[in-house]
């Protein structure tokens, strides 16, 4: 039995088809990444799996329980950390934890022990008596992760667990996630915008316009890009593109004013290319493909194209250069 089994799930909102017949399994103990641009159907899929929405069509089971017919058992099997906070700001961290323990029927003798342990894990023990409204965004997210684990779920859903957090907090959260996986058999189903985080996943499913367009390990997905990614900046972009297509038989993409394409063996290709390319070049860079490239190739757009702010773009470009 897989941890999650999704069989031809369709979800329509009126005329709009948000999820269009997706099927896949998530194995026990896996970190499974669910990637896609905004509006691709990620959140809808998670909402179906956690019983907040009923599918229009198709079947899904979580921990062996049907998400429509056996809601209560599904709810008991899963822990959730949503994109937007779901804490009660007016209560203290302890009170939020206790509410969760009562709601999930955590036995009395385990309750306080587990709360303390988890608060220690996310390093909030000293602030446990403070109201959540006094917490920073990162602290709230950490508290939510601790709360999501309180009833010892078999499957943890993380919807953008690090969105909007500073790099240091992001690293902390990833430390918790990797520690968790070592300690117990926990399946993690997560969505993320950060491609460097997606690398931590055992397998990744890419969803676009409600359909699964790829599903594999990060390294195999990167192999599909077809070798190394070469990025050039040319004097005359039009001519460069034309020549790449006609003379070298490549499929170049223009992004942020730069032209990039992939070749199987850049070490052999480049000396020849530099000698025979007819347009004068300002720069050439070569790098191993990233999941961004995979994403670009599969969906025709960068994952954070619409919503990435200036800083984020910068960070991503710097990241790409360092690789």
């Amino acid at each position: 039995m897989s941890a999650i089994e999704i069989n031809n799930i369709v979800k329509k909102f009126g005329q709009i088809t948000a999820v269009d017949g997706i099927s896949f399994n998530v194995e026990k103990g896996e970190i499974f990444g669910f990637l896609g641009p905004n509006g691709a159907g990620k959140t809808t899929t998670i909402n179906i799996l956690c019983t907040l929405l009923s599918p229009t069509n198709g079947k899904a089971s979580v921990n062996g329980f049907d998400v429509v017919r056996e809601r209560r058992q599904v709810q008991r099997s899963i822990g959730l950390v949503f994109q937007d906070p779901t804490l009660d700001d007016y209560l203290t961290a302890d009170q939020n934890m206790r509410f969760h323990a009562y709601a999930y029927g955590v036995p009395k003798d385990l309750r306080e022990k587990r709360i303390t342990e988890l608060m220690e894990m996310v390093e909030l023990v000293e602030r446990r008596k403070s109201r959540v409204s006094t917490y920073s965004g990162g602290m709230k997210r950490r508290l939510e992760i601790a709360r999501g684990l309180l009833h010892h779920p078999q499957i943890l859903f993380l919807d953008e667990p690090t969105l909007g957090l500073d790099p240091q907090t992001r690293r902390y959260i990833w430390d918790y996630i990797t520690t968790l996986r070592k300690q117990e058999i926990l399946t993690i189903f997560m969505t993320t915008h950060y491609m460097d985080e997606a690398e931590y996943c055992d397998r990744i499913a890419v969803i676009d316009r409600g359909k699964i367009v790829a599903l594999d390990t990060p390294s195999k997905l990167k192999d599909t890009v077809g070798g190394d990614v070469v990025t050039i900046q040319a004097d005359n972009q039009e001519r460069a593109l034309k020549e790449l297509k006609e003379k070298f038989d490549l499929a170049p993409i223009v992004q942020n004013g730069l032209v990039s394409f992939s070749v199987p063996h850049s070490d052999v290709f480049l000396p020849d290319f530099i000698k025979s390319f007819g347009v004068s070049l300002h720069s050439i860079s070569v790098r191993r493909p990233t999941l961004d490239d995979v994403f670009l190739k599969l969906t025709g757009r960068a994952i954070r194209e619409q919503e990435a702010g200036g800083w984020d773009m910068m960070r991503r470009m710097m990241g790409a250069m360092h690789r």
Partner: protein
Amino acid sequence: MKMGEQFRGVWVIAYRDLLRFTGDRIRLFSSFAMPIIFLVIFGAGFSNVIGQLAPGVDFMKFIYPGIIAMTVLNSSMMSGLSIVWDREFGFLREVLVAPLSRGSVVAGKIVSSAVISLAQGVVMLILAPFVDVRLTALLVLKLIPVLLLISVSISALGILIASRMRSQQGFQVVIMVLLMPMTFLSGVMFPVNNVPVWMEVISKINPLTYGVDAVRQLFLAVQPLPAGMPAGISMSSAIGVTVFNHTMSVMDDALVVAAIGAVLLTLAAVAFSKQD
């Protein structure tokens, strides 16, 4: 589903609401201040203009039970607002994905609302000596079930509305266009028997009217008769709500409120269970 689980749902929702209420000093203060302001301003303002509404019933004695009913009413409506609030701030998701039945969530909301409303209604009784209203132990005992009944019905109405509301602003608008007229046309401020026909019709299909009437009749029944009044004539009969020439007794009123409450409760449970 097991009984124990249902009970756990009711208890955990009520626990959290009560925790929040007692932790929220501003709400605690305003919920007591509002009815007192009403009582003082309307009471003092109208007492001199309006004389006796019935033998031995001055305006203060008339409005005081009404204000108590109104306190319970306003406080009960908060259960709906808290759902809309939770939806906006995300906490509702934590509730909806927990292994609790929707019915037990609704029941928990109603229990906490009834407890808070009753506490507020009872606290208002402290003011009785200041407005020259007589209290007896039996009166207080009889008031408790009546106030609970009003609270449960109105809480159910609040939850029913909240199940369809996505924003607090929307809920506030509903309160303005629904709850305010309902309050004013329920006999809190003036008797609903000698008013224009259209107003009388609205008042008498308004379930609140019967809640207010029940509370008021309980109070008037224990007030001392003025000197010279023949015994046996009840003061309330002159003010009590009449439906097709039948003067409603406290029991009649309670039955009407209970019946409407049962309908609202069912609708609220269904509406809340259906939402995503």
